[in-house]
């Protein structure tokens, strides 16, 4: 466990020292601009606009970080040959991989928490108060983080088996496809043909179901998010990450470092 923590801490330190968290400046400027503008151009829907914009920005920035940093987690260590010295220590390959995953998810969590603070400040600016119903925004942010953890696991899996460019493309493809899982499941066989519809239905169960994690609409309107959904999404993300990381570890453990 300490080995995983050591790799994770170093991954976080790398992100901090490589100034990855500077994206927060962009987010802060976006939220400040939106808060000022929204008060002038919208009447009565300030909260909806701010929450929608804020959650979308948190999700988008997090996604970019998860994909681009996630893909480089292993490939960078191999390209720069830092992995030789590291794996000559009493460190198992799966511990290295899990440490990298934990480190990036922790980085994304810190980044998301900071962006969330910015979102609530903007909300406070337009509403002058925070209500109990705003807790839904926190749950929406938690779901974004779960979604990002799945993306990081996928990025690690792809980067263990192919090039960085292809890994980015695969991640993007999985994300887009995973955002339309419901449509894939309900594809009508009279339109697409029975074989295509069956394939789509099977695929929809293999792909990560990112649609379940999108509760921006509910959060923006201050609607209550069911507790069952929170439990379901948490369990789903944990299981999906575990399966994907097990696959990544299986590939990585057979890899030759020439």
């Amino acid at each position: 466990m300490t080995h995983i923590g050591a790799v994770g801490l170093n991954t976080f330190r790398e992100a901090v020292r490589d100034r990855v968290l500077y994206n927060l400046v962009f987010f802060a400027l976006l939220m400040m601009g939106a808060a000022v503008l929204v008060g002038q151009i919208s009447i009565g829907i300030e909260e909806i606009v701010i929450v929608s914009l804020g959650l979308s920005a948190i999700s988008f920035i997090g996604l970019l970080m998860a994909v681009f940093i996630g893909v480089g987690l292993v490939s960078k260590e191999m390209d720069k040959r830092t992995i030789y010295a590291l794996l000559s220590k009493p460190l198992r390959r799966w511990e290295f991989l899990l440490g990298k995953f934990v480190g990036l998810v922790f980085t994304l969590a810190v980044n998301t928490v900071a962006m969330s603070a910015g979102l609530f400040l903007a909300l406070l600016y337009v509403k002058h108060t925070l209500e109990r119903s705003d807790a839904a925004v926190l749950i929406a942010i938690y779901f974004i983080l779960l979604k990002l953890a799945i993306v990081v696991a996928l990025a690690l899996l792809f980067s263990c088996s192919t090039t960085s460019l292809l890994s980015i493309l695969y991640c993007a493809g999985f994300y887009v496809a995973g955002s339309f899982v419901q449509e894939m499941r309900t594809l009508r066989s009279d339109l697409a043909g029975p074989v295509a519809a069956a394939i789509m239905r099977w695929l929809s169960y293999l792909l990560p179901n990112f649609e379940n994690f999108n509760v921006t609409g509910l959060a923006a309107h201050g609607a209550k998010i069911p507790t069952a959904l929170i439990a379901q999404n948490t369990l789903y993300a944990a299981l999906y990450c575990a399966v994907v990381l097990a696959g990544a570890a299986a590939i990585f453990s057979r890899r030759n470092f020439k």
Partner: protein
Amino acid sequence: MPGPAIEIDNLTKEYPYGFLNLKKKTSLEGLTMQVETGEVFGFLGPNGAGKSTTIKLLMNLIFPTSGHARLLGKSTTNVEMHRDIGYLPEQPYFYDYLTAAEVLDYFAKFYDLAPADRKARVQNMLKKVGLETAGKIQLRKYSKGMLQRVGLAQAILHDPQLVILDEPMSGLDPVGRREVRDIILELKNAGKTILFSTHILPDAEMLCDRVGVIVGGKLQGIGAPGEIVGIKAHEMEILFALPNLGQNSSPLLAKATRMGDRYRLQVPEQDLYAALDQLRNGEAKILSVAQVKPSLEEYFMHLVAADRAQAAAVEVTGK
């Protein structure tokens, strides 16, 4: 009597290449050797000979096509073996956003050392490799030689029983090389086993109890440096002067090398007396006669030339 520190048995590594990876290139072929506990072993060979491949196989960074190896009695697949082994990769590169002290502390965490012990060891190592004052500078500002020192420090940080160094002198100036040599000797005096690969043959001659020469993925010779170069020692060298140069018409003169007012002539051992008679008849003054002992470098070059000739022959015949 402790057993061998390194046991390598018929180790072979092939890399697939070409479209669909159907062709295979053999980087290492049937390597069998042992390194005894407490000895300094030099692994010599030209670029692409299979030295780094062997070392990476020992460190379990790559997997053998066939054969196996044991380090300190443990299989290379046993991750716990790394607790007693230190490794310096070739041209080491570390996290450039960290300082030398941070890199060493990071690596020390994998040996489950207490924080206070880690801190003391890191300071001690930085001092040992001459980076005491540069320990708090990020590695991105380090020269190649300084990175090599960090590499050496991380390899011996945990006081390992066996140290494997891949080209430890590479990129170092004469002072740095001397320091690395001193560290290797210090480790040897402390009873550690050291295997290192190198291109710098005088260093191998100076430091090693035994050397192994690998060319073209095959072990060509193994033994004490003097022993293996001595195999080829059957030439004699005559050093002579010619006070009356004009009177000497010996055909041997054409074969001699002039060095100022003296000449050096190399002849096969069985022709020595005939050559001496000829020179004396030509009024040459014999200054010395000595057995030619080829240096490790000459032996090495001889093996490399033979391997290249064989490779060229294979290319011509297509076999």
